[in-house]
């Protein structure tokens, strides 16, 4: 039996997760539907004034994405733990952090990417000016991988415990505060005609740091959680 190279192992993990997600296409559409419904509720709750909706559009879309991703995060490792494939991954000679990075990438592609695709539609429903739309998409493109990476570490921590859904929200949301501040800040700045590059750059810097550290932390957390 020949040993897999690092690249082929990464590709195999990525392909496996994407195939599994594709076989259950219904699950991919769930976060999208959820985000659509949550955004629809805001005009009902706050009143349909255009000016008000326009002012809150960026923040509402951002938080809706965050909540939709939070719901999807919980299932990130669950089936892999249940059928034991995660333990096999941990035993494999390839570095666990890299393999988990691939799993996080697959998770981001299947949950966050569809959400980003419909984000302009959601923002348009709340009358966000089209000129601000690209900034919103940039912010989301940087913020959602950050959330995926941060979330993966916390999901890994709760992997060994039973009740994790609410706990995950309690742990993740405080850590998300800077992400929300910068992403919403960029959109708000663009809306007021101010330079918006600085918060985007901060998000990018945070993303680079998370890309390096989060898979390692995720691997360490999984080892802790599945130790017993």
């Amino acid at each position, binding site marked *: 039996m020949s040993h897999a190279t690092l690249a082929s192992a990464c590709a195999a993990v990525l392909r496996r997760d994407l195939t599994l997600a594709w076989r259950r296409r219904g699950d991919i559409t769930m976060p999208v539907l959820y985000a659509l419904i949550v955004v629809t509720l805001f005009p009902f709750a706050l009143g349909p004034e255009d000016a008000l909706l326009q002012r809150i559009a960026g923040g509402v879309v951002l938080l809706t994405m965050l909540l939709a991703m939070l719901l999807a995060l919980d299932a990130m490792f669950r089936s892999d733990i249940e059928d034991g494939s995660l333990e096999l991954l941990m035993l494999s000679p390839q570095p666990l952090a890299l393999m988990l990075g691939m799993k996080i990438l697959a998770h981001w592609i299947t949950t966050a990417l569809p959400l980003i695709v419909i984000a302009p539609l959601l923002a348009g429903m709340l009358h966000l000016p089209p000129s601000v739309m690209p900034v919103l998409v940039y912010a989301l493109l940087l913020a959602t991988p950050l959330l995926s990476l941060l979330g993966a570490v916390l999901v890994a921590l*709760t992997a060994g415990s039973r009740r994790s859904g609410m706990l995950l929200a309690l742990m993740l949301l405080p850590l998300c505060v800077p992400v929300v*501040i910068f992403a919403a800040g960029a959109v708000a700045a663009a809306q007021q005609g101010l330079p918006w590059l600085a918060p985007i750059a901060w998000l990018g810097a945070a993303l680079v740091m998370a890309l390096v550290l989060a898979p390692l932390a995720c691997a360490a957390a999984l080892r802790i959680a599945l130790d017993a």
Partner: protein
Amino acid sequence: MANWIPLWVHKLSSPPNFYRFAGVLRPWALALALVLGAIALYGGLVLAPADYQQGDAYRIIFIHVPSAWMSLFIYGVMAVAAFISLVWRIKLAEVVAMESAPIGAAFTFITLVTGSLWGKPMWGTWWTWDARLTSELVLLFLYLGVIGLYHSFEDRRQGARAAAFLAIIGIINVPIVHFSVNWWNTLHQGSTVRILGPSKMSGDMLWPLLTMMAATKFYYIASLFGRVRTDLLSLESGKDWVRQIAEQEGQR
């Protein structure tokens, strides 16, 4: 040679030794906390003059500022203990980290409540989305996350390790949240009200504040030692030294 210090520290980290050590120190720490706290309260509430601008309402800082300081200090202690417990797998460090969390959460809660009590007469509102208030609230959530994660595992040591990991991740967030003061203000309205800096404070207001800071430190030690002692007993309930203590207590 002078290797008695590492030896002493090493011995101290064993649960029965720490149990005895904490039992001896705890009453003294508690007594110091009560005496210093009483002195500080008398100094702050009676002796210190009223503020020229805020009148008597400013006196809440003698509770508010020390507990705000403790809320950050205890997070630091918790994160350091968590780091030690993860790296060297010392049982005592796990217990210290996990038992610090509720005390830190309590101090954070006191900070938020007293701050809002002060905010009502001064700012005319119980709560405002000032970066400093918000970061303190986030700190409370971080504490609650650590406590929640610790209790969500059936195996206590496993829960402690997971929660210790979360505590360490959280401390990366503490400076980020703290710096959000600047970032937030550039985008939203500037902060108009600032809490008095201790350096700009006159001496007869400063000494009760510093005394109260010492009192809260000793209170933390006393509270932590009490919690750690009970926790060690239940964690080590199958061990011989716990049985001996139980028999001694039973004979008394």
